[in-house]
C-alpha cells in the first residue's frame, strides 16, 4: 500500500466493501472522515474503526496491528541495510539529493493541507503565528495544538453570538 493514508481508501473500498461486504460505502466514507479528524495516522484510524465496528476493542487492536506490521518489517529491514551503506560517499551524495526532494515534497504538502485549513483571516493568523514561533523558538507543539483548538472554539463561539444578536 504505497503513498500513505490517502492511498488506502480505494484499496479498502475494493477489499472491505466489494469483496468482503463487511460495511457499506457510506460507512467507510464516515470512518475515513473520522480518521482524518482524530489524531494519528489516517490509515490506522480508519482500520481501527473498521475493526472496532466488526469485533469491538479486540477487533480494533487486531486491525491496527494488521496495518502496522508490513511497515514495521519493511522499514526495519531497510533501516538495517541503509545503516550499512550510509557512509559510502555515493550514498551520502544520493541522500544530499534526496533531502532536496524531501524539502520540496513537504513544502507541497504544506500548501495542500493549507488550502483546506487556511480559510479566513483567523486561520491565516493562527498559521503565521505558529509558523514563526515554531521556527524561532523550541516551543512545545503540544501546547501549540491545544491553544489553537481553544482559540478556534472561542472564535467560533464569539461569531455565533454576534450573529444571533
Amino acid at each position, binding site marked *: 500500500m504505497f503513498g500513505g493514508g490517502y492511498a488506502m481508501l480505494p484499496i479498502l473500498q475494493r477489499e472491505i466493501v466489494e469483496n468482503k461486504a463487511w460495511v457499506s460505502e457510506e460507512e467507510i466514507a464516515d470512518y475515513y472522515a473520522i480518521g482524518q479528524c482524530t489524531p494519528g495516522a489516517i490509515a490506522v484510524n480508519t482500520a481501527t474503526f473498521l475493526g472496532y465496528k466488526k469485533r469491538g476493542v479486540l477487533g480494533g487492536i487486531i486491525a491496527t496491528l494488521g496495518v502496522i506490521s508490513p*511497515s514495521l518489517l519493511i522499514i526495519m529491514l531497510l533501516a538495517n541495510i541503509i545503516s550499512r551503506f550510509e557512509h559510502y560517499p555515493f550514498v551520502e551524495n544520493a541522500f544530499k539529493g534526496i533531502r532536496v*526532494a*524531501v524539502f*520540496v515534497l513537504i513544502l507541497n504538502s504544506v500548501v495542500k493541507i493549507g488550502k483546506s485549513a487556511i480559510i479566513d483571516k483567523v486561520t*491565516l493568523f493562527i498559521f503565521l503565528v505558529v509558523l514563526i514561533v515554531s521556527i524561532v523558538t523550541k516551543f512545545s507543539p503540544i501546547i501549540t495544538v491545544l491553544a489553537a483548538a*481553544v482559540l478556534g472554539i472561542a472564535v*467560533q463561539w464569539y461569531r455565533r453570538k454576534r450573529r444571533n444578536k
Partner: protein
Amino acid sequence: MLYLKLFCEFFKTGLFAVGGGMATLPFLSAIGDTTKWFSPMQLANMVAVSESTPGPLGINMATYVGYTISHAAGAVIATLSEVMPSIIIISIVAAVLQKFKDNQYIKDGFYGLRAASTGLIGAACFSVAKVALLKINVHVNIRTVLSFMKMINWKALLFACILLIITNWIPKIKQWHPIVFIAISALVGMIWKF
C-alpha cells in the same frame, strides 16, 4: 528507562498530531531537538525512506525513528506507542459516532487546530530546508548577508526550484508518485555532487 521515555514521546506524538502522517513530523523534530537521539539531517533522510516505502507515512516514520534510537525493540515500541492513542480514541468515538460528528465544539476546535498543524508542518519544512539547502560543514558567522550567501548550497537550491516547478506545474509529471522524484533526486545527487 529509555523504553519508557520512548513510549511517552511517541504516545504524545500519536495523541497530538492531527491531520495524517506528515503532521507527526514537527513532533518527531521536537523529540530530536530535546533528546538528541537523532539529528535534523537524519530525520530528513528517514522522511525520504518512509515516503518511498509502502505503508502509512506516519507509521513508517515512527518505526524508522524508533529503530534509529534503539534498533528492533525501539522500532516496535515507538510504533505501538504511536498507534495506542488512536485505538483508545477511536474506540470511544466509535461508541458515540453520531454525537461526535455533530458536536459543534469538536468542529470549532478543528477549525483552529488544522491551521496550527499547517504552521507546525511549515516550521518542520523550514528545518528540513536548512539541512537540504545549506552547507553544514562551512562554519561561518551569519552576521552579514555575504557570509550567509556563502552558506547556501546553490546547486541544491537550483535543483529545489526545478523540482518545485515540475512537481506543481508540469501536467502529468506532477502526478507521479513521490518515490519517482526521490529516485531521480538520488541520481542527481550522485552525479551532480552538491
